[in-house]
Each structure stands twice: as C-alpha cells, then as structure tokens.
C-alpha cells in the first residue's frame, strides 16, 4: 500500500511539473510565432528593378526614411543610402554587406549603393555607424527579412 501511495505521489509530481514545463514551452512558442509574424502587415520596401529590390534610404539627424526596411528571403537587395544633412554611416548589425565598410561616412548629398542577397529570414537593427550629433544613438531602425 505504502509503495502505491509513493508511486502515486511521484506520478502526480511528475505530471504537474511536466504540465508546468509544457505551459511555459507553449507560451514561449506563441511568443516566438507572434514575433515572427509581427512585421507581416508591413509592405515590402522599394521596387523591383531588373530583378533587384531597390530601396532608396534617406538619413538625416536622427532618423531613417523609410523607417523600417522590409524584404523577402532570397531577394537581391540594392540599398541606395543618401545623407540629407550631416555625414552618416550605415550598418545592418549582424549582416556583412560585400564591399561596404560601415566606418565609411556618407557626406551630405552623397549616395552610397550597397548590394547583397537577403539569405536568412529574421529581424536586424539598422544603425547610423558614424557619429552624427547628440541624438546619434537613437538612429536605430529595423531590417526585416520575411520568410
């Protein structure tokens, strides 16, 4: 009898702890799904020119236009980054853009053309990589690659 009680108590403990873990895992999965789809309502940025998604970006103290960049996975992307006022840098943190050094400053009125393929889906931060004034740190937006 004692053995049965011990087994029952152990089974209840096991089931309750498993269900608790399951609850946390289920909640976590829902949060992950939500964050994956969070940007689905945003339209794709720019237009297709000769098979390349071309997006014009304007940088000024302390914002980017458009605010967020949205492309599809596998897109060949061409970013034409223009500085409106003071020198700005451009970087997508975590993505290395061929032949582009984020330390390069784009001077007022200049345009830099960056080309790469959006290989992985996900969300990255785009930042100004050259000091552009007291609000420099707030010049941070999103680069979104949809599945």
């Amino acid at each position: 009898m004692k053995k049965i009680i011990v087994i029952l108590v152990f089974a209840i403990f096991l089931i309750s702890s498993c269900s608790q873990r399951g609850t946390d895992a289920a909640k976590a999965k829902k949060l992950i799904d939500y964050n994956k789809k969070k940007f689905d309502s945003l339209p794709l940025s720019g237009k297709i020119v000769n098979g390349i998604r071309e997006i014009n970006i304007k940088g000024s103290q302390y914002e980017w236009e458009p605010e967020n960049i949205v492309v599809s996975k596998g897109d060949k992307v061409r970013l034409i980054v223009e500085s409106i006022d003071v020198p700005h840098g451009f970087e997508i943190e975590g993505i290395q853009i061929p032949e582009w050094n984020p330390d390069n400053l784009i001077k007022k009125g200049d345009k830099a053309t960056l080309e790469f393929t959006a290989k992985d889906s996900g969300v990255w931060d785009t930042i100004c990589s050259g000091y552009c004034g007291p609000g420099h740190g707030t010049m941070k937006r999103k680069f979104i690659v949809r599945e």
Partner: protein
Amino acid sequence: MRKIPKTFLIIVILFLFSLSLASSHSSYLFGISLDFDRELKENTINAAQKFMNTQKIPIIFDLNNGLIMVHFEPQQTNYVEIDPIDYSVHGFRNENLKHSQGTVKFSTKQAFEIAMKEFDKLSPSTKSELKYSNAVEVDGTYFYKWFRYNNGILILNNDFFVNVDAVNGNVIAKRLAVFGYPAQLMDKNPAITGNVAKKVAELTFNLPSVENFNPYLVINGNEMLWVSRLKGPFYPFYVGVSARDGSIAFTGVVPGEVPDNYSAGIEIKIIETDMVENIYSSK
C-alpha cells in the same frame, strides 16, 4: 575587497571591449569627427579645456555611450567626457595625477571616503537612484562603483565610478554615465516570466540552458529584458529576451556591466499586459 592582477584585468577589459565593439558600433566609436558641426566642436573643446585648465588642442575624439571623449594625450591617459547635449562634464581621466613612485598610504576605507566626496557632488535625484556596488584594486589605485536601479532592477550602462590613487589620494578618474531615460519612462514589471523567457531562448536557438543559471532582469534603455544563458556548441552565451513581448533583444554578451551576485527577477511581480494575454490565448 578583491585584488585583481593588472595583466589579467587588462586582458579582460580588452576582451570585453572588443566584444562590445563587435556587437555594437553605436556604443563606442573611435576617432569620430565633429567637423560637421562647428558649434558642437567648439563648445565641446571649450568645456574640456576649461575643465582640464589647459589650452592644449585635443588629439582625437571618441564616442562612449553618448559622451564625447576629448583626448589631450594618447592611450586613454588624459581625457574629458562631455555630454554633447549641454556640454556638461560627465567624467575625466588624468594619469598625470597618478603616483609615479611611493608606497600605499590610503587604505580602501580612507580612499572610499575620498570617492564618497565625489559621489556627494551628484544631484540628490541622481544619488537616490544609485547603489554602491564594490571596490576593485588595480595598479595602486582603487575603483569604486555605483550602479543605477529602478524597482530593484539594474539599468545597464547607467553607472558612476571614482578611481582614487592609493599612494597620493588623488581622484585620477571618474565618470557618471548619461541616464538615458527617467525612471518613470521605464518598464516597472515584466509581462512574461523568467521561465517563459528562458524557453523562448532555448526554442529560438534550439539549445539547452546552462545548468543552475537562473534568468535575471535588466533594463536596457527603457526596455526590461530577461537574461538567459545557453550552452552553445563551443561556449555558453547570453540571450536577452524582451520582458514585454518575448522578442530577442541581444545575443552574445550582456551589453553592459552586471555586478557580481546580481540576481533580481524572481521576486519582481509579473504583470501580464493585454497584448501578452492575447498572444497566450491565441490558437
């Protein structure tokens, strides 16, 4: 108080520094130019020169978490840190005030009293948000550090330190970080639990957590994050999960210093927002 070998400390500092540079260009920038804004440049230099009581021309400017470092000598030995918003002085380092020879004359306690005089110069509201953390002895000097908290939760990169020479008692460096957000604009309670955040990290990267590591809360900017630690294929790494919506905020190293034995999290009340409740109840 712990005594850390200088070489080890330098290696650790350089390592952390390189990681922080690799993970974010925006927190520290070497050799920035201020030529695009004449007024900004002039006012910054004037404030630094006035503070150092010098007419020397700066040799270089760096950006350190929103503060412009005006260097008058090479290798981080003589600089002033200026807030470009109001040109106030937030910090300095002057190695010329450091002893060149002699024996230790100031105990940790005596030097702490000197550091406290610097702390007392801060505004009452700033002081009320800072908590003293620890002292570290490096190369004949003492570092005393305070961290900023909101509702018991550490605010990353919002700290204050004073560096006192153990031989001559001079304050050779100090720094008050820019407090980016007032406390009332910061998240006060997490909307998801630490265990859910831990699961988000595990499932996102398909990796297990480090055993016996309990997630803790920090505030980065004005956003509250749960910090988890995963076992990577080669070494463990940290994952910051937003306590607002479970999104991944950072991976790799925690983007700011965390005091030893810091563990705030479990005791903080979870307040599920409507958004999080809706996500949980969705099919």
